[in-house]
């Protein structure tokens, strides 16, 4: 499996797309496949202040409820309202339409704690 270029990854299977000091967050294709059919996503509140790697919401699939550990810290600028009506969007387009939320980065230095696409590939190959 190869990951889309230009993204960073966490060990908890979230991806981050950075644009300046703003980052888009979602879960990986590997994560959505492992979870199965997603029926509900609980996202952080607009304006909430997130700490890197803290549990800030949940993804509920027909199999389990899993925590979302935010891969980056900062202030929530936007959440994906489409997931409310159509949570399966995460299964269909994990890297595009199924994004979770947008963050104004608190500290760009935190990005150093994340994995490159190759490193993430190695992580899931070992799993």
């Amino acid at each position, binding site marked *: 499996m190869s990951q889309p270029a230009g993204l960073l990854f966490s060990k908890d299977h979230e991806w981050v797309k950075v644009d300046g000091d703003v980052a888009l967050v979602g879960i990986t294709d590997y994560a959505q496949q492992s979870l199965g059919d997603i029926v509900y996503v609980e996202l952080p509140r607009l304006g909430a202040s997130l700490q890197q790697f803290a549990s800030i919401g949940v993804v509920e*699939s027909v199999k389990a409820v899993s925590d979302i550990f935010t891969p980056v810290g900062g202030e929530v600028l936007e959440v994906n309202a489409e997931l409310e009506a159509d949570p399966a969007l995460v299964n269909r387009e994990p890297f595009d339409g199924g994004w979770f939320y947008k963050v104004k980065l608190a500290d760009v230095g935190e990005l150093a704690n994340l994995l490159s696409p190759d490193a993430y590939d190695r992580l899931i190959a070992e799993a």
Partner: protein
Amino acid sequence: MYTPHTEQDVAAMLAAVGAASLEELVRVPDEVALRAAPDVPPHHAEIDIAARFAGFADRTHAGEYLAFLGAGAYRHYIPPVIAALAMRGEFLTSYTPYQAEVSQGYLQTIYEWQTYVALLTGLDVANASVYDGATALAEAAIMAINATGRRSLLVSRAVHPSYRRVLCTYAAGIGAAVDELPYAPDGTTDGTRLAAALADERYAAVVIQSPNFFGTIDPLAPAHAAAVKATKTLLIGVTAEALALAALATPASWGVDIAVGEAQSFGNAVAYGGPHVGFIATTETHLRRIPGRLVGRTVDRAGRTAYVLTLQAREQHIRRERASSNICTNQAHCALVATIYLAAMGKTGLRDCAAHNVARAAALRARVTAVAGVSAAFVAPAFNEFVVRVPGGAGAVLAALRKKKILGGVDLGRWYPELADGILMTATELTTAADIEQLGTALEEVVRDVARV
């Protein structure tokens, strides 16, 4: 599946705590160990035991007293159909089923209970029940705290004092603050400073009870409800007397986000401390935060109606410490009793019964306030209970009434020092005109005696 510990497990655990054997671990110290057999009478024949216990039962004189007690536990007529159905073995022997979907009948009764609660409250979703009205309120507060990310609660002083104590116990455990909202001279919650109190968006929820602890009908006024909504604070509506829901505008209609309360009035006897049955209902927005079990209706492969436990992924046995509530069960049998009661009464029967309560309470209020020196404490409309002020203090008057075999009401001074002369009196459909006259006459004598002292 139950997996016993192996000998190796036991040895490892004993080593960890430094005990040589299980016997040593649980050894009773000599100074407290029982040395001789306790002095207990020898065995008796079943017939003798039955006779002895009948003798104990005869020492109870509750039936000789005329009661005007309420304050969260209400004496209502219980139709015999309830015992005939609720005592069936299929219902009486089942606990919340672990292989739930095998018990379609039980799930159907829970689904019907949820439906009744949703109809009575006007809200979208209700759970399978919780322990009682007080814990229902505490669970609703946790829902509000999780939904808003705020850690303070603003609670009317006219909410049942016991409910507030349970709420404070839960709040202390989760580090939440509970502030009070005063009541106005008319016996309703004073909302004049509500908007100012909410302005800094500190409160997760405002808690109001209607009818409130004084019996007063106390929905939040539309202007105040707007202030609650404007600050994204949730409104929790409490009802300790569920029968009132059949007579009053639904909690949903006065803007509550979560309605909770006590449904003992629906077919469950007034017992010494319970069991009671709590209900909790909310809007679809907060569906996933509701605690406990939820039963849903669907169809099976052949298209037949089937009932299932649904949204279990949020419950504690799946989510462990991240679950929002540790409730994994419900008050199934009491909820079943309430469900049978509601089905037996029907919409018209329930409304008629509620109307009788209003009429009997009005008659009682008119009679007791006709006694010289006795006055109504509050002017706002009531459901089936109300507060009167009496000369000489509530405690003395109630004690004198007890000597006349009348339980005249509840002494409010216990919770409200400013109402030490206040008695909360209740009438239901079981209160007769003769009962009312008996209390009225007794109260005249008692008040006259108090005046003479």
